[in-house]
């Protein structure tokens, strides 16, 4: 941690918002990207990143200056994402189940998006395909993949962010990559058409 950051932290602890904004200016884009890769859409990523950053601000007095601020920040972002994903799972709506209304029952239908041209373009973008593949990974594996392969963090850093031993990080990376590879192989044609 630099002297500069230490000075900022002191000011933040006295409630200085400007100092906080200065401090996170280097990290918020990464935080946003982590959230985006974890959640898969920009809207949620924005909300969750902001929520996480507010949490960081509110609990800044709990931050121990001996550890790395970025690691601590990523941990809060990750935990907020985890909560959000948990919430999503609980709020899953069944498409088969009929909804009872005053006028009788009805069932849900999925909108037909195939004919939307911009969607088609978007769908064929490599990054979008990859993102969709990432979205299907289990949460724990997705976390390490995002941190390692997208954000380029070291095993040690990841271990600190998710508070798991390095051995666990290793095995999760291995498993995550394996799963991702399998999914992407099935969609190989989409990637190949773009890359080669």
């Amino acid at each position, binding site marked *: 941690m630099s002297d500069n950051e230490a000075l900022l932290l002191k000011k933040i602890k006295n*409630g200085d918002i400007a100092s906080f904004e200065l401090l996170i200016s280097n990290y*918020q884009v990464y935080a946003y990207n982590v959230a985006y890769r974890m959640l898969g859409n920009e809207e949620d990523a924005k909300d969750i990143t902001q929520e996480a950053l507010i949490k960081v601000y*509110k609990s800044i007095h709990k931050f121990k200056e001996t550890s790395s601020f970025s690691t601590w920040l990523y941990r809060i972002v990750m935990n907020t994402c985890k909560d959000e994903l948990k919430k999503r799972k609980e709020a899953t709506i069944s498409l088969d189940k009929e909804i009872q209304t005053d006028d009788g029952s009805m069932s849900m239908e999925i909108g037909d998006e195939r004919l939307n041209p911009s969607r088609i373009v978007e769908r064929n973008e490599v990054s979008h395909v990859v993102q969709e593949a990432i979205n299907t990974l289990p949460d724990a594996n997705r976390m390490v993949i995002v941190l390692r392969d997208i954000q380029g963090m070291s095993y040690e850093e990841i271990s600190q962010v998710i508070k798991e031993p390095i051995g666990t990080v*290793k095995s999760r990376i*291995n498993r995550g990559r394996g799963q991702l*590879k399998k999914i992407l192989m099935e969609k190989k044609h989409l990637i190949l058409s773009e890359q080669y």
Partner: protein
Amino acid sequence: MNCDRYEDQIHLYVDHRLDKKEKEELLKHMETCTHCQEMYEEINALKDLLGGMQMKELPDGFEDELHVKLIEASAEKKETWIDKIKETLWSGPKVKMAVSFGGVALAAVLVIGNSGLLPSINQLQSADESAVYEASEEFYADDYNGAATSEPMAMEMAKDAAPTIATITENTRAGEVSVTFNEAVDPIIATDSANYTLKSSGAENGETFGVNEQEISTTDSDQGTDSEEQKFTGRLIIKTANLSMDIDDYDATSTEIYRMVDDMGGYISDTSSYYYIYDRYDDTKNKKSGYMTLRIPHQFFDQFVGRLGEFGNITNYSSNANDITKRYRDTTAEVKNLEVREAKLREIMGKAEEIKDIIEVERELSRVRSEINRFQSVLADWEDLVTLSTVTINMTEVEDLKINVKPVDKDMLTKAKEGFIYTVNRMVDTMEVFIIWLVSAIPVLLPVGLVGGIVFRKLYKRWRK
């Protein structure tokens, strides 16, 4: 060939986490193993793919939005010390359970209090109501007094406040007397505004005569000075006294008091006594306790109360003097008014010929009579209360009167000791009352607690979500 081990190594290899020896070993293996070679290429490609993913720019307005939220958070942050207290207070499910149980218990107390299991609240309420009632009574009495003494005001009153309660139209030519009575709801107002007009149409000129409040009031004030009122001139005061005293011999003392009451011309209206356990280890030491309600002629009241001190130690004394002069006079005047009205009705009665009319007048007469009787009995009660003061004595027999005599001086230690014992005793008493209450309230508390608990758990779960 064991490739599983190498697969793990490949992941580490692409992440540059293998030392020189491990790396050489892996590379050597891959030269011969196409499977692992492919695997390496795939993982490497994947890593490139992921690593090459473009960084998403922050959405528009991200920082502004965050800034607003930060200011809000900053305002909240200032209250964190309150949160801290809350956090410590509310940490752990046990405390929450306790708090919720407390809430349920409180609710139960309220329910029981209302349903009358705890009578004190209701008593308080009824005491309030009676106070209001008394006040309103006085108000009516005031009104009446005004009406009775001032003639023009009586007229006003009759016109404004009161519907005509009796209209008697007499038609002598036709030989008909039509009598109409309008029952007024409030008897006081009814007597207040007794305004009846008797219209008697003469055969030729239709002469009208009326008897109204004005006349009655006048006669009233004339008569107001005779009979009973002469008996009770000056202030009319109901005196009561309430005493508690410790005595050394219940029977002897009560005999003594009875004799005194008899001498003064009073009587014993109520008495009751019982034995109580004085020393719980010695049945022979049981003592007598009881109370007596005595009626003493008012002129001896002070003398009697003064002499009671001779029999023992008076531990509690309260006396009350209730001046009812005004209320008494008002009621007396009311009775007078009703009597005049009764006389008038009898007059009408003599003129009535039709059976129907006779019945009507008869009914009104009996109503007026019962009203008069009612007021007279109230007056009689008051007279009784005024002439004979009421003294209630609670007497408790004690082992030695001197125990209750306070020493002139006490050192601090004794006082502290006494205070301590008193407090402990009070605590024990309170606990006892509470436990008794708790046990007796179980039939109510249990279902209330159950329902409350279920509701709380549901709310808590929802809140956690």
